[in-house]
Structure formats: structure tokens, C-alpha cells
């Protein structure tokens, strides 16, 4: 074996070790939470409100709150995100205006989540008088999810072969008919994948909902979109920093439920992707 070959083996081993340094902690983290949290997960924990200053009982209102927020976020961000991706791919010409939109998407994705929280608070809670509410929180999370949905939808639309559009247009279909019947149906899997992924991120976010929707302790379910709710990530934050003497098992179990929810959404997106990739026509 010559020197170059030995150096290659050493270098590749170093790269392998670096990768292990990342992979092992990821698995340890998941295992650690599952092992410590699984014991405390009971039917009561999932279906009851917290009791006794959150030291006992369950997290049902927080689960419901997070699900409501995810649904609200989707209602606002999915149509808006898909329409603006359609604009960018199908309608926009390559001019200054389009470049401005693309740059805005990039910058929107880089804005810190706490800044979204500030914006949501001053714009939706105060300026538009929505109050601390599901509506204000969903809108804040929706703006935050927009860049991911737009980027994913854009890629999905761009991957539909150009010939589909040409054929449709040559048959006399209008621009919108072409988009609606010949492009969009084939882009939907990609769009859904990106949407579910961005929603799973929204479900785990704490900073944007701190001042816009999250309730410290609200052991009942919301009655309207103008109600506050508890949310899983905020609840975990509260019980691990704000309230002393919470049984650790409860914190672990809350973390486990949050992670499970997020992973479940990710899994849905992965399955969707795999399923549609098989059925792809091109």
C-alpha cells in the first residue's frame, strides 16, 4: 500500500469519526427521552387537563392547542404559499420585481422566530386587536412557514416537465387551465410534502407563540379563534423553567409527546414522498 492510499484511509476514517460524533448523540437523545418519558405516558396523561399547579394530571389542552395551531397555520399558509409559488414559476418574468420576491423569500426564512413573535404581537395582537388568540398565533406561524412552503411548491412545480404545459397550451387551453389541470395535479405530492414538513416545524416552535397565543395554564378547551390556548412546546418550556418541583417524568413525557407528534408529521411527509415518487410519470 503506498503513501497516498494510507493517507486516504486515514482521512476517510477521520471523516467517519466526525459523522459518528453527530449520529451517536442524535440517537442517544431520542433514546434518552423515550426511555425516561415512556413510563409516564398513560391514558390519563393524554386525555386529562393538568391539575395541582401542573404537578399532576395530563396535557390534553396543550395537545389540542398545538393541533389547532397547526390547522390554523395551514389554513393561512398553504393557499398563500402555493399561489405565490405558482406566480413565481408560471407567471413571473425574470425581472427586478421577481428578484425582489425571491430575495424576500430568502430573507423571510432567515428572520429569527422571536422576531416573528414580536411582529405577531405588535401587528396582530395589538394593531389588529385580535388579542392573544389562536388567530394571532396561527397568522404568526403561517408567515413563518411561508418560505418553506413556497420553496417546496416552487420545486414541485418546476419539476413538472415543460412538455405538459406546451401540449395543454397547444390544445387551446388558457394559461390558468393549463396550470390548474396539467401542472398542479402533478405538483401536489411535492407541495404536500413541503407543507407537512413546515407544519411540523411550526408545531415545535415556541418563540413565535410566546406573546401571541400561548397560555401559561388554561385547563379548558378554547371556544373560538379568539381564545388563548396552551401549546405543547410552551408547556414544556413552562414546566421545565417556570414552575419549581415538577416531577421530571412529566417533563420527559411532555417532551416525548411533542417529539412523537413532530416525527409523526415528518413520517407522513416521507411516506407521501415515497408513495408519489413511485407513481411519477416522468
Amino acid at each position: 500500500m503506498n503513501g497516498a492510499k494510507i493517507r486516504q484511509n486515514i482521512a476517510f476514517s477521520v471523516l467517519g469519526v466526525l459523522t459518528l460524533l453527530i449520529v451517536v448523540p442524535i440517537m442517544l437523545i431520542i433514546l434518552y427521552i423515550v426511555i425516561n418519558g415512556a413510563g409516564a405516558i398513560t391514558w390519563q396523561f393524554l386525555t386529562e387537563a393538568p391539575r395541582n399547579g401542573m404537578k399532576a394530571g395530563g396535557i390534553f389542552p396543550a395537545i389540542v392547542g398545538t393541533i389547532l395551531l397547526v390547522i390554523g397555520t395551514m389554513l393561512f399558509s398553504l393557499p398563500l404559499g402555493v399561489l405565490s409559488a405558482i406566480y413565481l414559476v408560471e407567471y413571473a418574468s425574470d425581472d427586478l420585481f421577481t428578484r425582489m420576491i425571491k430575495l424576500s423569500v430568502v430573507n423571510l426564512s432567515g428572520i429569527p422566530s422571536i422576531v416573528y413573535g414580536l411582529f405577531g404581537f405588535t401587528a396582530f395582537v395589538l394593531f389588529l386587536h385580535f388579542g392573544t388568540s389562536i388567530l394571532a398565533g396561527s397568522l404568526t406561524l403561517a408567515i413563518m412557514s411561508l418560505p418553506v412552503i413556497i420553496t417546496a411548491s416552487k420545486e414541485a412545480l418546476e419539476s413538472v416537465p415543460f412538455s405538459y404545459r406546451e401540449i395543454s397550451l397547444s390544445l387551446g387551453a388558457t394559461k390558468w387551465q393549463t396550470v390548474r389541470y396539467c401542472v398542479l395535479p402533478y405538483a401536489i405530492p411535492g407541495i404536500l410534502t413541503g407543507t407537512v414538513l413546515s407544519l411540523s416545524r411550526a408545531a415545535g416552535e415556541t418563540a413565535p407563540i410566546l406573546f401571541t397565543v400561548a397560555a401559561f395554564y388554561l385547563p379548558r378547551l378554547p371556544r373560538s379563534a379568539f381564545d388563548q390556548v396552551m401549546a405543547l412546546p410552551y408547556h414544556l418550556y413552562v414546566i421545565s423553567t417556570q414552575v419549581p418541583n415538577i416531577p421530571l417524568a412529566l417533563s420527559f413525557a411532555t417532551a416525548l409527546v411533542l417529539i412523537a407528534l413532530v416525527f409523526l408529521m415528518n413520517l407522513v411527509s416521507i411516506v407521501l414522498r415515497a408513495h408519489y415518487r413511485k407513481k411519477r410519470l416522468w
Partner: protein
Amino acid sequence: MAENSSESAVRSYAKPRAAEAGIFVPLNRLRRRIGEPIIELCIKLSGFVVVIFVFLIFLFLLRDSLSLFRQYSVSKFLFGTQWLPISDPPQFGVIPLLLGSVFVTAWAIFICVPLGVGSAMFIAEVAPKSLKHVLKSLVEILASIPSVVLGFLGIIWLGPFLRNTFHLPTGMCGLTGSLLLAFMALPTIISISEDALVGVPRTYREAAYGLGATRWQTLWRIILPAASSGILAAVMLGIGRVVGETMVVLMVTGNAPVIPKSILQPLRTLTATIAGEMGETVGGSEHYFALFAVGLVLFAITFTINFVADLFLRRARK
């Protein structure tokens, strides 16, 4: 009528359903005349909406920041070395918070760039295909772990661990935050670096192999330099991610708004200050507006970082 039949052809091409044109002909015509301009208007407006949001976020932050600067001078805010919002008179010097963010970010990046770029190289060039998929999904799993969960682990496990290891007075310090943030920035850095490495044209590789270079020599001397723009963009985006991260630093860095001298002492970042103090302020007070000014500083920093990263990415694509 030719137009209508072509439309149904288009439709049946997309959705092979029974002919639905016949009955709906008048309806379709109406839809095209009125519906289509409306939907196209919606599409154009939605395209513009992203620009409006960025502008609105900036505007609202600026509005509330200006309310502070009417009562408190800009230079005292930007260059003040003390953040004492509830003393009398209050001090709103952003320097301690800025340095807190810089300290935590620098250490996080210092830790995660070698790890991230190294494992991107492993995933892109060394790992066999099956392992590659496993590694990529693990990185995706890491990306999806909510930050509050990592913060929780920092409090109950990493903080105490570091305190015992380095014999610190408290485990809630800058280093705990940096380690967790490094971990959180990894998915961004790995996936973008890997894209950059894979995106290097095959001809580069073939030419190097043809000259007798080993795979490692090719990777180190040819592919890595060729992918440098993309890797720089990855690092920039990683920095942006770390600077903007809130919950982890709020939970584990000890929340001491003083100018940090070492990474092993408690400190506080820009983001944690907003998250931690907003709940305690009175709406419309100086303190309240000062937090928006901090938000504006954050906005400016991340805007710049993303702008630069985008320039690098654009160059990488060429």
C-alpha cells in the same frame, strides 16, 4: 365550440373522468370569462405578499423602535455597555447582549463547522448508498427536534454534566448554549454543504482520477475548493440559524445580561432578552420599546447574513 372541446381534452388528460364538458359548457365559459382574471389577480397578489410581509415586519419593528429613540438616544442604545432595564434611570445598552450573541455564535460555529463539513464530505463521497440514506434521515430527524426539547435536555443533563466536568459554579453558561446550538445548526450546514459537494461537475472528478489522484486527493484538492462557495453559504446560513435561535439560549445560558469575559460564564443573547423580558414589561414603556429595538438589531443582522449567503449560493450555482 372548438375551444370547449379542447378544454375537455385537456381535462381528461389530467383526470381521466367521464366526459363532464357537455352540461357544464355555459358554466365553463362563465368561469373562464370572470373566474380566471380573478384567480390570476389572486396569484399575482400572492406573489407580492412575501415582499409585503418582509416590509411590514421591518416597518412594525421600526415604528416601535423609533418610539424608544424619541426618549433614549440611538448612540446610547447602540454603544451602551449596560443593560439595566429596571434600574433608575434604566440603561438600554445593547452591547452586552450583542456580545453575548457573538460569543455563543462564534463557539457554536467553531464546533459545528468541522463536524458538519466533515460529515457532509463523508455522506457525499465516502459512505455507500444505503448508509447515505440512513445518515441523511438521521440528519432530518435532528432538524425536526423542537428547540425547546433540546433546551430541556440542556437544563437537566448537559448543564449539570458540564458543571461537574469543568468544576463550574453553574452549568447554565455560554458553553452549554453553544454546544446545543452547534447541534441545531448541523442539519443546515450538512445538507447545504452536501448539495454543494455533489453539485461539482463530474468532469472535475474524472479529470483528477485520470491523472492518477486518489479519491481523497480528489476530494480534498479538487472537489472541496470547487464547492467552497456553497460551503461558505452553508456556514453563513448556519450562523443565521444560531444567531436567531431563541428557546435554547433562553433556557440554558443563565440569563446574565453582562459583557461576557469567558464562554464558561452565564450570559445572555439578543433573542433571549426579548423572549425573557417581554412578558414583564408594561406596554408602551421605554423597556417595551427597547425590546423592539433589540428585535430591529436582530432583523438587521440576519437580513445581512442571509443576503450574503444568497450571494454565495448564487455564485455556487454558476
